[in-house]
């Protein structure tokens, strides 16, 4: 795979041109509904200006005396680096839990605590290659920013979004504007092709001559995307969603087994080493376990 060698790598991690995360109070400028989701526009001076596609922010829940002690993380959907209010960004909130329901019910001018930009961004090709972008559910949120950057570099962009049903699809219209093609799938057939995003991936690869696959969505979807990419010898980058307590690399809760450059599997933090991982490096079928050959894995007895 020639493109692999030409990726502008951020594998070096810390430093490499990425801005450091900061902690700021943001003001909610607007809240809009999109299907089952809410799009929050929030001022984020010092974050929005430096955010790169695939990075995320964490948002404090419930105010100062909240009983929700953990922040929630959200992929950065869009950024406006200049405006009346300075930089601002858009987050996509799916109100399914206590915290996200609280956030979705905020009003304009409410203040929320933000930390970001966090995590490693998607790496971008240095040449004008053909890219397939795949989003499952609100997993398509970070793809819009990515598609714009890819188009700036002259890349072809073919997008696929999918969800269980029509109301759970996100960002189709926006993506369509920056993509050469957009394919929509739903599990129940309420919109687009009935089936999964991975059912149409092969056809998209064939039609677009895909060199790189970018994906964001639920773990089973990512696992299948990575499998197809690896089988077809296409470089893939997947944005994982692991539950995180801190988002900044100190709590060690968001780990998953990933194979390093030295072929050794380690339990790595998806917040700082990720959330973007090479599809062929994540041990998808072992997520939720510590594979016995992991660095520092317990001896045969007592993983618990």
């Amino acid at each position: 795979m020639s493109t692999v060698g030409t990726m502008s790598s951020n594998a070096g991690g810390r430093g490499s041109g990425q801005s450091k995360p900061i902690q700021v109070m943001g003001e909610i400028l607007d809240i809009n509904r999109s299907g089952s989701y809410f799009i929050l526009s929030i001022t984020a001076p010092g974050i929005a200006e430096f955010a790169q596609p695939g990075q995320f922010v964490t948002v404090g829940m419930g105010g100062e005396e909240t009983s929700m002690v953990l922040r929630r993380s959200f992929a950065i959907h869009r950024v406006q680096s200049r405006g009346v209010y300075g930089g601002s960004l858009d987050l996509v909130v799916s109100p399914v839990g206590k915290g996200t329901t609280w956030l979705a019910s905020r009003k304009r001018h409410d203040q929320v605590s933000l930390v970001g930009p966090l995590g490693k961004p998607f790496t971008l090709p240095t040449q004008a290659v053909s890219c397939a972008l795949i989003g499952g559910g609100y997993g398509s949120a970070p793809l819009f920013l990515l598609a714009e950057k890819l188009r700036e570099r002259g890349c072809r962009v073919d997008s696929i979004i999918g969800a269980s049903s029509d109301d759970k699809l996100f960002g189709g219209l926006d993506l369509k504007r920056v993509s050469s093609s957009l394919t929509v799938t739903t599990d129940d057939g309420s919109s687009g092709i009935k089936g999964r995003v991975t059912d149409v991936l092969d056809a998209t690869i064939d039609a677009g001559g895909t060199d790189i696959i970018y994906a964001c969505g639920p773990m089973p979807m990512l696992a299948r995307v990575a499998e197809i990419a690896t089988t077809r010898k296409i470089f893939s980058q997947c944005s994982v969603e692991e539950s995180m307590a801190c988002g900044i690399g100190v709590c060690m809760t968001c780990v998953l087994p990933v194979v390093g450059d030295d072929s050794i599997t380690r339990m790595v933090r998806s917040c700082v080493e990720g959330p973007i991982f090479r599809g062929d490096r994540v041990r998808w079928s072992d997520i939720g376990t510590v594979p016995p050959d992991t660095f520092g894995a317990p001896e045969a007895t007592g993983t618990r």
Partner: protein
Amino acid sequence: MTRAIISSQGIPSQGIPSQGAQAPEPTGNRGSIVTPQSWLDMSTNLGGLNLSSPVLTASGCAAAGRELENYFDITELGGIVTKSIMLAPRSGRATPRMAETPSGMLNSIGLQGPGVDTFIEQDLAWLNARGARTIVSIAGGTAEEFGKVAAKLRVAGGVEAIEVNISCPNVADRGQVFACRSDSAANVVQAVRRNSDGKMPIFAKLSPDVTDIVEIARAVVSAGATGVSVINTLLGMVMNTTTMRPALAGVTGGLSGPAIRPVAVRCVWQIRQAMPEVPIIGMGGIRSGHDALEFILAGANAVSVGTSIFNDPSAPIRIQRELSNELGQRGFSKFSDAVSYAHRNEDLVLDPAQENFADDWDFITE
């Protein structure tokens, strides 16, 4: 910081300068109070270890300090207490490792870490180069392992104190934690003491999941601990009602956060009552300077900020600032004067020259 001072609610404003998001203003009748941070002596002594501030990070909530550098200057804190280090690298447990609970969280990480050699080469070296005061938390499956880790740290140097995490499973005792028995807790502390410099401050971190925490505190101090860290997490459990299985892969986990704070304050109080001179590092759900003050009044010589870091990465430095304000508002000129102040005799007055202060004490409990 917009969430500067959140702690003065519940205290009537009579006789106290009005509290907003700023430091107290100088007032006529309380001329000695200016901006507390500027003159209040925050230094503390932990059994020979002098720190410029009593606010530390809590083990397991700050990694080895480096990630927090994005949010504040870690050298401004009293010290960094590292995540527990073991002899060998450890992968930790499977996920899910975490569940949020009311005003707290449950975790079951399984002591993931690089092992003491890599820790010394990378993390400790970085902390020392950065000029941080480092308290290294150590863990082990046997008393011997604790001793070996301590011996390696002794050779490495650059360690201000050792915190002994005895709340980890004892391989020789069917996985029961060392902290739940006086003899096993004492054995670990002895092993660490034998392998450390005689002057090295050693703090045993106690579990609240015991019948009598004072008995364990006495045992570890007799075994050579300089002081105690109080408390570790409480053992808890959460069910996932979708899978109808335990929410954590490790089944049980450690409960932390504001939910456990009253338990922690009680433990500090009981140990201080029994052992008037033993250095105590207090921790458990500290979210504000006001919370930290509770521990100090109960007898803590220093406090560690843990789970709150997950909510607010700059919490330790904010709490340090807030604590200074809280002390200043109550007329203290030295942090050390506030330690154990709740244990004072009823008729003791802070400063006879400021008699009306005595009235304020009635309102301090929320």
